[in-house]
C-alpha cells in the first residue's frame, strides 16, 4: 500500500486531455473513492452528477470562464452538497474531491479540480443550476474534469523551504528544521 505515497507525488493539475472515452467502470471506481472519504458524523452530504454531454460541458465551462481546454475532457463530475445534511459539508466535499483526484492519478487518468463553491449567483452557478437541475438546499461544490492526459507533468518535488517553514513543534512559531524526505530514492520501491 506504500505506492499511495508515490501517487500523491504524481498527482498534478492537468489542462489537456485526449478525447478517449472513460468507461462507466472507471467512473464508478472514482466515485467509490469519493464516497469512501470521511465525513463529519458519517453524514455523507455528497451527491454527484456525471456529465458526458459535450455541449453541456462547453456551456458550463464558458459560463464559469474556465480554460476552454478543460471542456475537452470526456467526463466532468459535478460534486454537489446537500447543505442541510452536515455543517461540515465544505470540508467533507473537499476530502471527497481529494480522494477522487488520487484515485484518478493511480488509474493513469488526469483529473482537475474546478472550484465553484464561492461563486454563488455568478453566471456559471446559474447556468449549472439550470442545466444540472440542482435543487433548493444543494450547493454546487466543484467539478472534477477527468480524462486521459494529453500532457505529461513530472511528479511534485516538495520545496524544502516550504516544508521547513510550515511545520511547527508544539506551538505556533516553534519551527522545525527537518529536511523534506528524498522522494526519488524512496518512492515506489514496493
Amino acid at each position, binding site marked *: 500500500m506504500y505506492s499511495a505515497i508515490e501517487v500523491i507525488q504524481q498527482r498534478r493539475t492537468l489542462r489537456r486531455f485526449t478525447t478517449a472515452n472513460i468507461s462507466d467502470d472507471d467512473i464508478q471506481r472514482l466515485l467509490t473513492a469519493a464516497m469512501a472519504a470521511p465525513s463529519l458524523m458519517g453524514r455523507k452530504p455528497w451527491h454527484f452528477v456525471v456529465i458526458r454531454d459535450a455541449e453541456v460541458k462547453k456551456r458550463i465551462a464558458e459560463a464559469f470562464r474556465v480554460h476552454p481546454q478543460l471542456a475537452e475532457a470526456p467526463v466532468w463530475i459535478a460534486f454537489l452538497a446537500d447543505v442541510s445534511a452536515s455543517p461540515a459539508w465544505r470540508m467533507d466535499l473537499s476530502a471527497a474531491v481529494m480522494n477522487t483526484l488520487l484515485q484518478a492519478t493511480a488509474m493513469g487518468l488526469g483529473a482537475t479540480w474546478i472550484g465553484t463553491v464561492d461563486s454563488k449567483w455568478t453566471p456559471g452557478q446559474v447556468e449549472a443550476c439550470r442545466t444540472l437541475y440542482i435543487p*433548493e438546499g444543494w450547493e454546487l461544490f466543484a467539478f472534477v474534469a477527468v480524462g486521459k492526459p494529453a500532457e505529461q507533468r513530472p511528479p511534485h518535488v516538495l520545496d524544502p523551504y516550504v516544508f521547513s517553514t510550515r511545520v511547527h513543534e508544539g506551538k505556533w512559531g516553534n519551527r522545525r528544521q527537518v529536511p523534506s524526505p528524498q522522494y526519488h530514492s524512496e518512492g515506489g520501491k514496493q
Partner: protein
Amino acid sequence: MRTRKGTQMLRTILARRTHTAFQDTPVPESALNHILSAGMLAPTRFHQRPWHFIILRDAEVKQEIASALRLKPSLAGAPIWIAVVAEEDGPAAWDLDAAAAAQSMLIAATALGLGSAWLMPWLGNPDALGRVEQLLGLPANVHLAMILAVGFPAEELPAHREEEVYESSRVHLEQVRHAPSNAPAC
C-alpha cells in the same frame, strides 16, 4: 481499465477508517515526514498554500485539549496529533485547502500502516475552538481547521467494502433525478 496501481490505491482509500484507540509505539519520524509532505502536496486554490502544521506530542497537552473538547480520552493516547491550521487567504477557501491536505495526509498514514482520526469537535462551539487556538498560540489571522490523531492502531479495523461504499442513489447522469424537490432552485 483496471490497473494494478488503481486497485492498490482504492484498497488504501477503503482501508482508511477512523481509529479511536492507539498503541504507545512511537510514529517513526520518516513516516511523519511522509505524512506532512502528503499534506503539502495537496492542491490549494490558486496555489495559495495557506496551511501550517503543528505537531503535538506532549501527553499532557493532548489530554488538556481532549478534555476541553470532550473527546474520547483514548484519542489523546495517539502518539502524534497534527493540528492543521491555515492563514486566511482572501476568498475564503482556507478550510477547503486544509481539508484536502488533511485527506491527503490520512491516505499517506493509511499507506504507511498507521491509524488516524480527523477531529473537529468544536463545530458550533466557538468558545472551545478559541481555547484550543489560544493554547496553540495562533495569531489572529490563523485558524484551526482540524486535528489529526495518528498512531499505530490498538486494533485493526476491517476496510470499508467497495459495494457498501458506492451508493448509486447519489450518482446522477447528466441531471439530478431523485432530488427532494422536483424543481431546480434557479
